[in-house]
């Protein structure tokens, strides 16, 4: 935590103010100090932002280069071949890349919606009811995060092969729905955002348990559930092992598996590098857009739901 003290020397003046203890003007003084821009604080944040953007800038610039320029011109000097690269990528095996994007949207979109629903129900059930075995159930569900995906891939494959579901959309979608982390988050959100009194009031009005959940609890949970949705969306979007093992037909691939395949082929057909880089850029864009669109949900005060009602 030593990092904390060094970047904030600008706080020294208020500290000296504190020593003088202005009896009444304190509030104003503090507000003023709190909102006065600090160059150091800004600089620290900007350095962090720059560090995080650097590889992204690289991929943006690199995707404008032709295969020949990629390793020969200065790294951050943009070129003019972005459209060509996108056209080449779109032309690869009859537009397969866009199929991968659609598949990913399907896996991540539908998977995350279903996962959010399942997690919300489970989290609500765990947060708002008392029943025997509750903690045992929760701990067992949560223990799922301990087992890495690499380990599960083959047993899951063998299991789905029994059901004749390997190499289908289901084989990737179904295992993605269950998310211990999602349930964990949903439980916290349900406990914090849905007051017991409100649930009780709905029951007194004669609402069924299901109705109470969907019409009373879910609206209060929406900000939290959007977070669970985003979390699951990204988790499925990034998942590599499961689709890699399950799918043989590249028309069913999500983008990560497809791009990694292109990269592997890059070993013998280096022209693929340009395609991979352009593909990486295009694959990040929808997620960035999604983040921007749902950005305000990341700022939501988790206690707000409880406070409002």
């Amino acid at each position, binding site marked *: 935590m030593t990092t*904390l003290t060094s*970047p*904030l020397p600008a*706080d*020294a003046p*208020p500290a000296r*103010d*504190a020593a003088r203890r*202005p009896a009444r003007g*304190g509030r104003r003084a503090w*507000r003023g100090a*709190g909102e006065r*821009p600090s160059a150091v604080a800004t600089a620290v*944040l900007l350095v962090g*932002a720059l560090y*995080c953007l650097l*590889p*992204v800038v*690289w991929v943006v610039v690199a995707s404008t280069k032709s295969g020949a320029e990629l390793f020969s011109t200065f*790294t*951050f000097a943009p070129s003019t071949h972005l459209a060509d690269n996108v056209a080449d990528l779109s032309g690869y095996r009859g537009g397969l890349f866009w199929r991968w994007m659609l598949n990913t949207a399907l896996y991540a979109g539908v998977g995350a919606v279903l996962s959010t629903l*399942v997690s919300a*129900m*489970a989290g609500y*059930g765990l*947060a*708002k*009811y008392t029943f025997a075995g509750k903690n045992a159930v*929760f701990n067992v569900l*949560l223990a799922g*995060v*301990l*087992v*890495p995906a*690499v*380990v*599960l891939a*083959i*047993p*899951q494959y063998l*299991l789905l092969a029994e059901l004749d579901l390997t190499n289908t959309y289901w084989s990737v979608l179904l*295992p993605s729905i*269950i998310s*211990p982390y999602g349930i964990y988050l949903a*439980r*916290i959100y349900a*406990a914090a955002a849905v007051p017991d*009194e409100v649930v*009780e009031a709905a*029951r007194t009005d004669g609402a069924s*348990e299901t109705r109470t959940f969907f019409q009373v609890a879910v609206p209060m949970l929406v900000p939290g559930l959007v977070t669970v949705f985003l979390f699951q969306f*990204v988790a499925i979007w*990034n998942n590599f092992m499961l689709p890699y093992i399950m799918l043989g037909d590249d028309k069913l691939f999500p983008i990560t598996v497809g*791009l*990694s395949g292109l990269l592997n082929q890059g070993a013998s057909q280096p022209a693929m590098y340009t395609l991979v880089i352009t593909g990486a850029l295009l*694959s*990040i864009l929808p997620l960035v857009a999604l*983040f921007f669109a749902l950005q305000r949900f*990341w*700022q939501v005060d988790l206690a707000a739901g409880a406070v409002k009602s």
Partner: protein
Amino acid sequence: MTTTTAAPPARATGPSTSGRRRLAPWGFLAPAIVLFVLFLALPIAYAVYLSFRTEKVSGLGLGSGSRTEVWAGLSNYAAALGDPEFLASVGRVALYGLIVVPTMLGLALLFALLLDSRRARTRTFSRTAIFLPYAVPAVISSLLWGFLYLPGVSPFYDLFERFGWDVPSLFEGDLVMFAVANIAVWGGTGFNMIVIYTALKAVPSELYEAAELDGASQVAVAWRIKIPIVTPSIIMTAVFSMIATLQVFAEPTTLRPLSNAISTTWTPLMKVYRDAFTRGDLYSAAATSVIIAAATFVLSFGFLRLVQGRAFGQEK
């Protein structure tokens, strides 16, 4: 788990507990439980079963049916625990975790406090930029950093050379640890920052105002009020980061072809992958994974026990 303490314990307040009410939670949990059993519990049980089995070949092993699966007892476990490569990979991951977790969480906390303090400009831009790497899959981020690391194609080494500095390649020798750690820090800081930032925003402003009336400085407010209140969030992010650390796989696997310093058993999970996928020995891979899962369990719970009293004690 501790989460029960983090979230206010739910109480059934109603006087009457009808049968419907008793069944309701199970109804809500049913989809999760069914999916959990099918896609996590069964595969895990199968993996545990496999960890006690092995395959024996007879003769040249070329005819069909020359392979049979037999019981192996604990021999897969004994082999894994006695394997110097496995122990070395555990040591590497421990060091890797000691670099990644404090750096990542320290940066996440710093950025979250700066965002919350309102004193920095460009907060929306910075928050978005720092969070952005979360959107980049590990396979792709490793590829991007790989290009930036390789002296032959990296713009940094270009610059170093112009200045006449002889900077050693990150892919030679032990520096590769930092190359991998950097990717994890880069990818994880933003997410943890948001988690902590969200917790900070939940701190009631009355608490600040009270402190401010006492004339406390921003640093003091951060130290005395904000950090203690968000400690439970920090602890949970630490636990999840530790679990992710023990499972580190995608980054070193993607970088491996670029460097002589990353072996196929560089991390425990890479060894699992090599055994299961390159060597086709599912049985040893299963035993090694059971050991990893057990170690993860012990470590994360041990850590929670260690910090629980202090962190959550304050809350009550």
